[in-house]
């Protein structure tokens, strides 16, 4: 049966492709892409879907087709990468598996693949650099000192193993500068320019770092006799405790944007779960409900207190970023789930809704929860205005 339908699909393919060519529309595109996917020609399906996206930009059906085709292609590539790992394990194969996992939005699987790869190929500079990149993304989300330390260690190792790639020390210097280790960053750029004298970006970064150090000395926040390198570990711990990157406007903007996105979905979460309250906790401990800050109420204290204590606990025990905290009691359940830097939460008094609530929170943090449509101002008249 499978063989027959596959043969039929093969015969149909030129016809469907011609139909899309002669009369391009989202529906002829859908027919062709679906057929290509059934025939496991995922690369062609992505190519075709991309062409469709370029032609019918913004069409929801075409966008969905491209998403489905890209995911199917990434899954096929991932399966091939895992097969390659089993049959001919190499650093390239581990890198490919990690890249596929990233495309499938499974960052943790990518980190695990590279961890495993580095155990077998500890001298692969490319794997150290890739692991640093993934962990830097995770660090940005959680600001966990352990991740930050590992980023620095991997980038240093990648550079030591292969000094011909100037992008790695440049990234290391940029990371160090970001966490406030400006003198350490300056030293890295000096070493980089020692090897690659005419590296334009390196020179540019070195100049701006030198200016920053000079400004710190002038302002008295650093002394001319201070050691050449800062205590990177101490700086990372300070950032972890503060829960934010002080002086980084990009960080504040990221939190604001994330907070606004989550707040927009709180009403929909409450409507879907029937929970008592849906809220979000910002990194600094401010708690917002559907209609703004919750203020000094017990729920805000509980949510912020649990978020802070839970994050501190898992960081100190080096368990990686907190994903969720659930407090089940006889009087109700409090659920917290991490998005990026903020935590979304729910207070439930019905144990039977726990499962649906967990799903709703998962959807909210993944950006799958659509805000409740606002009612048009003229659609409903206040009571007493009906004449």
């Amino acid at each position: 049966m499978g063989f027959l339908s596959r043969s039929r699909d093969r015969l149909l393919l030129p016809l469907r492709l011609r139909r899309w060519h002669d009369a391009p529309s989202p529906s002829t595109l859908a027919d062709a892409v679906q057929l290509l996917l059934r025939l496991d020609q995922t690369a062609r399906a992505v190519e075709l879907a991309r062409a469709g996206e370029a032609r019918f930009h913004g069409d929801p059906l075409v966008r969905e087709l491209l998403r489905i085709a890209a995911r199917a292609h990434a899954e096929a590539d991932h399966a091939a990468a895992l097969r390659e790992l089993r049959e001919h394990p190499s650093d390239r194969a581990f890198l490919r598996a990690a890249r596929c996992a990233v495309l499938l939005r499974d960052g943790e699987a990518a980190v695990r693949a590279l961890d495993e790869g580095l155990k077998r190929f500890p001298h692969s500079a490319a794997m150290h650099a890739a692991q640093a990149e993934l962990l830097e993304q995770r660090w940005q989300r959680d600001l966990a000192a352990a991740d930050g330390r590992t980023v620095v260690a991997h980038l240093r190792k990648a550079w030591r193993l292969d000094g011909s790639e100037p992008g790695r020390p440049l990234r290391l210097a940029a990371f160090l500068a970001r966490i406030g280790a400006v003198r350490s960053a300056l030293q890295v750029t000096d070493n980089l320019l020692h090897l690659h004298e005419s590296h334009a970006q390196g020179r540019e970064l070195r100049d701006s770092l030198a200016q920053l150090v000079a400004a710190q000395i002038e302002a008295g926040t650093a002394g001319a006799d201070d050691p050449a390198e800062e205590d990177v570990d101490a700086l990372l711990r300070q950032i972890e405790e503060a829960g934010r990157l002080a002086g980084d406007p990009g960080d504040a903007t990221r939190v604001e944007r994330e907070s606004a996105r989550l707040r927009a979905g709180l009403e929909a979460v409450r409507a879907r779960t029937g929970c008592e309250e849906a809220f979000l906790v910002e990194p600094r401990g401010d708690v917002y409900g559907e209609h703004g800050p919750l203020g000094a109420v017990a729920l805000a204290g509980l949510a912020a207190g649990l978020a802070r204590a839970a994050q501190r606990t898992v960081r100190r025990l080096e368990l990686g970023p907190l994903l969720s905290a659930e407090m089940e009691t006889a009087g109700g359940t409090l659920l917290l789930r991490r998005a990026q830097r903020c935590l979304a939460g729910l207070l439930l008094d019905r144990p039977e809704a726990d499962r649906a609530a967990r799903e709703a929170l998962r959807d909210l943090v993944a950006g799958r929860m659509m805000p409740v449509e606002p009612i048009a101002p003229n659609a409903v008249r206040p009571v007493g205005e009906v004449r």
Partner: protein
Amino acid sequence: MKEILRPLESVPGVQGALVMGQDGVIVASVPDHADHARTAALLSAVLLAVEKNAEQLGLVPLQRLTLATARGRLLLMPVGELVLAVLADGTSDLGQALQEVAGLTRRLLRQSRIEVRE
């Protein structure tokens, strides 16, 4: 008390377990070689952080607190005056571990009642 915790060691994915007082003082823990003092102190701080506000909201008594992370899960269950904490990895299914924990909790409760009577 330690013997009651032993079965948890063989549960797939469970890395350690401990019974402690609300103040973080360890009563018993497994495996023997692990240093649980830090874990107990941190978990006690978590309980303290939520205690007052949870009471005001009527979220009492606590039945279970679960912290899930990228690399593992921490479970806390009050057992009478004590608290049972289980550290498990992040990938394994905790269904079996939870059953073990539930059985263990009952045994611990029975034992604590007997100790009180004595």
